[in-house]
């Protein structure tokens, strides 16, 4: 069997295969639910209801989508320039650490005016964490997949040390968590009485900004040129390494905002379970969105909905929440296959 590229895939092909992938994902999910001894239709219904069945459920989904939009954007920006940043998790925790350090320090006296400063400082931290691996890549050709991935573990261990040591909450009854952020430095709710915080608004703005950068700015043009064909970009005079460094700063900064928004908007303190793998799920979010910054918002909400819905379904139907992970993994694999099939035709022989 061989793959033959298709010059101009028709509309039926470009939409048909992704739709087929989605249908197959639902089928697989149903099989899994049946395997767990539940009625598949009922289970799926409960997932949808749990994700979007009420105002509370919907807001919960949007809250959960917020860090995924940030990490999804971080991945989309990096992958677009073929910079394989697998370390959004590390950059997220970097942002979270800085947020807590500044938010429990002298800055807290400045009240809400300090919020932008804290956000910027968090972004700088995330950017610096990605800068190291990228310098190693541009200078010595070290594979950034390995270095960024390993940074995730380094940062997690660092957080673990900080929470057991210098940043341990003296009032925490021995739990490994940091002291709470000053009340004035918490991100406000979008509307009183709603659990949705302004981190979601910030995420939407970030998506808009990234879209603008990619399509309308000189830097965006450079990033896309480097990603599509770095050899031609170099020949044309685009400073490829400098562009990669700028991309890394943007990507690391975006991932760090996820940490900032989770701490300042939701949790109020740093703990080891701040991120249940938002950095990794961001890869799925970005890939499902085909690396389009506005698409990231849609897929992040979709992915968050599956997680939130599965949580609620598992309480009602007794099917383990792991079904959400399996569902997402299936969706990603089938979607990647479907995207491949819109561009290539399988030929026998």
């Amino acid at each position, binding site marked *: 069997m061989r793959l033959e590229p298709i010059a101009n895939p028709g509309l039926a092909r470009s939409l048909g295969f992704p739709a087929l992938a989605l249908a197959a994902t639902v089928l697989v999910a149903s099989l899994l639910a049946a395997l767990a001894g539940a009625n598949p239709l009922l289970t799926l219904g409960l997932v949808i209801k749990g994700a979007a069945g009420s105002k509370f459920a919907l807001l919960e989904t949007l809250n959960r989508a917020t860090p995924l939009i940030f990490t999804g954007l971080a991945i989309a920006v990096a992958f677009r320039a073929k910079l394989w940043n697998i370390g959004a998790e590390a950059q997220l925790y970097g942002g979270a650490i800085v947020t807590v350090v500044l938010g429990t320090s002298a800055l807290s006296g400045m009240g809400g005016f300090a919020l932008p400063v804290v956000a910027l400082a968090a972004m700088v931290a995330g950017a610096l964490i990605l800068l190291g691996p990228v310098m190693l890549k541009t200078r010595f050709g070290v594979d950034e997949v390995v270095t960024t991935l390993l940074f995730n573990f380094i940062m997690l261990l660092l957080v673990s040390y900080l929470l057991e040591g210098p940043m341990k909450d003296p009032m925490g009854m021995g739990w490994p968590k940091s002291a709470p952020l000053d009340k004035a430095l918490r991100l406000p709710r979008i509307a009183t009485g709603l659990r949705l915080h302004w981190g979601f608004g910030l995420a939407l703005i970030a998506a808009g900004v990234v879209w603008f950068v990619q399509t309308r700015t000189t830097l965006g043009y450079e990033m896309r040129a480097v990603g599509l064909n770095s050899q031609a*970009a170099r020949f044309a*005079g685009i*400073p490829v390494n400098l562009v990669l460094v700028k991309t890394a700063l943007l990507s690391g900064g975006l991932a760090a905002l996820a940490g900032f928004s989770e701490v300042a908007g939701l949790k109020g303190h740093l703990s080891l379970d701040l991120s249940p793998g938002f950095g990794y799920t961001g890869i799925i979010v970005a890939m499902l969105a085909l690396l389009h910054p506005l698409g990231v918002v849609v897929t992040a909400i979709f992915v968050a909905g599956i997680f939130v819905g599965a949580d609620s379904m598992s309480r009602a139907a007794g099917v383990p929440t792991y079904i959400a992970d399996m569902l997402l993994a299936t969706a990603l694999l089938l979607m990647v296959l479907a995207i491949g099939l819109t561009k290539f035709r399988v030929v026998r022989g």
Partner: protein
Amino acid sequence: MEAQEVVLRLSRITKRFGALTANDAISLTLHRGEVIALLGENGAGKTTLMNILFGQYTADDGTVEAFGAPLPPGNPRAALAAGLGMVHQHFTLADNLTVLENIQLGTAPLWRLGLGRVTARAKLARLAADFGLGVDPDALVGSLTVGERQRVEILKALYRDARILILDEPTAVLTPQESDALFETLRRAVETGLSVIFISHKLHEVMALSSRVLVLRHGRLVGEVATAETDKHALAALMVGAEVSAPAVAPAVAGPALLTLRDASTRNQGAAPGLKSVSLELRAGQITGLAGVSGNGQSALSDLISGLTQLQSGSLDVAGAQVKWTPRAAVASGIARIPEDRHKTGTIADFSLTENAILETYNQAPYSRHGIMDWQAAEAHTRNLITTYDVRCPGPSGPIRQLSGGNMQKLILGRVLELSPKIILANQPVRGLDIGAITYVHSRLLAARDAGAAVLLISEDLDEIMGLSDVIHVISEGRLSPEFARGEQSAAELGLWMAGQGFADAA
């Protein structure tokens, strides 16, 4: 010849790619012990026809018959089993394996211990002796010269008991002397009963080797003649569809040197040699031709002038050159660069025509102001290029990969020539283009020369170099020959330089 057995018969082969008919009802017969030449311009359908024969493509219509039995379509294995052997223009050898290992590759059965080296070695030695193809079976392919590698490719086909040998432009990478050795081998092969299809667009080779010539043009078989009954002029006329006359190029009046290299040396890039103490002057109003066999330092010189590499020693003088020599500095110094590979380095396939048109100027006004792109200005510029340079395309916003090679090259020409360059580096500017596009590119280069630009034309096609250049240098293993005026050296004499003879430090 008529009495000989027919070994291969293609009947009314037709292949369409969308609106394009690449092969239009082509029929062909090949006899035992015969050499036929398949002659045609690039894009005439020669390669498509051979791909169908080998099962890489399936024909829309028509049949293939080998040794009297029909060949199933779309099945490369069947073609190999039927005794067809192909030597591709681009070799398919593994550099880090020995000659023997390369030849055995793919022939050893999966479920057997041992490699059968002894038998293989004996068979290889016998083939080498029979056909005069001396190669050390234990040499690493990576250490062989291009001519030797081609011998390995031929041996590989013979080892698989090929009785029909197909050679796709076999001399494109050879020196004239290596080509002669190849022809000698092929004559011997034919005497032992092999049949050969020889694909080429070089008339003198076709005349020297084949007994029959089939001419393809725009996918159709436009002529089939016995070689003894024709001549170069008649074949050329058949090939391009009209009597061709060499373009009469008026002699140029050379101006001052705009780019000067003195004792310039660069590092080797892997197997590709760097420059070895090269001195070169590119003068205003003159086309300087650089002849040479592929892979002898043309890339090193082109990369240096393009700004991709830096000098190891020596000097590079360009008026207005900046301190650090980069691609951007080269463009700023007024160098127009037409790269060798327009797909990989000249354009970004998934970018639109507009995005490709501003690749070198995207960061300057009017396309970029304070970091924000002005796409309207870029598109207006692209529309202007499309009209001025006659780029046939659906529009400025479609991806450039949909364009044919000729139209892609016209856009690149427009991109660099619109900057009114003082120096033009044209590296293989017409490779893979059809005759119309070739004429267009050449006329643009000549016009730029007449307007006072210094042109460096790098090509592996000696006819192109001799036809256009006011002065000629030959490059061999990174060394540059002295400058020859137009007509000073014959093609055969230049061929000797290409083979490395005549250089002061020749080994």
